């Protein structure tokens, strides 16, 4: 069995300040981990993925995430938020062909 917990349902930051979206997971085996972004009424876009290579993963739009096995975490960060980053973000754990999605974190960026 596997599960994903996104620790914050809403995160609000000011433009130009750092972003931290937290994700913890549980999985019986070594999983693949993903972060997706969803803008209103749009499909999901892959931000980045971890598939047992480097533990620090760089994605699109300046986002990165660090896989920490000891903490079972895969937090998403960005040094400086932009207004266009306002969206919903999903952490996903995938193993044996099955994906489990977190409930999502809504990121609000204030001017």
């Amino acid at each position, binding site marked *: 069995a596997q599960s994903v917990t996104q620790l914050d349902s809403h995160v609000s930051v000011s433009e130009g300040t750092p972003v931290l979206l937290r994700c913890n997971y549980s999985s019986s085996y070594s999983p693949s981990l993903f972060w997706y972004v969803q803008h209103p009424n749009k*499909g*999901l876009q892959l931000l980045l*993925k971890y598939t047992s290579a480097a533990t620090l993963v760089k994605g699109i739009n300046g986002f990165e995430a660090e896989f920490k096995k000891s903490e079972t975490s895969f937090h998403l960060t960005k040094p400086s938020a932009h207004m266009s980053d306002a969206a919903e973000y999903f952490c996903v754990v995938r193993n044996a062909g099955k994906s489990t*999605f977190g*409930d999502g974190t809504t990121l609000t960026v204030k001017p």
Partner: protein
Amino acid sequence: SQTIHQWPATLVQPVGSPLSLECTVEGTSNPNLYWYRQAAGRGLQLLFYSVGIGQISSEVPQNLSASRPQDRQFILSSKKLLLSDSGFYLCAWSAQGNPREQFFGPGTRLTVL
């Protein structure tokens, strides 16, 4: 390059009416195909997945069904819609050789009144 299409983009249907949502993938062959539903403020729930033509696995019991009449076509259907079927439906595909990564379509927003 591969692309995935869904239509319609939005749909408003009365309770008890039938439903047919279509998903097609271009630029790849023999993909794994998935239907997800996203309720408001929630993560995604896997409804169906398919590893080949005519092969459908259902993840949760529900009012919906899926079919895969062609290699790159995946259809989500219902004979009679319920209010609880409202939501955002996403189709996704993954390569047979790399099932770990999924690519999502633009989604269909279904409102049942």
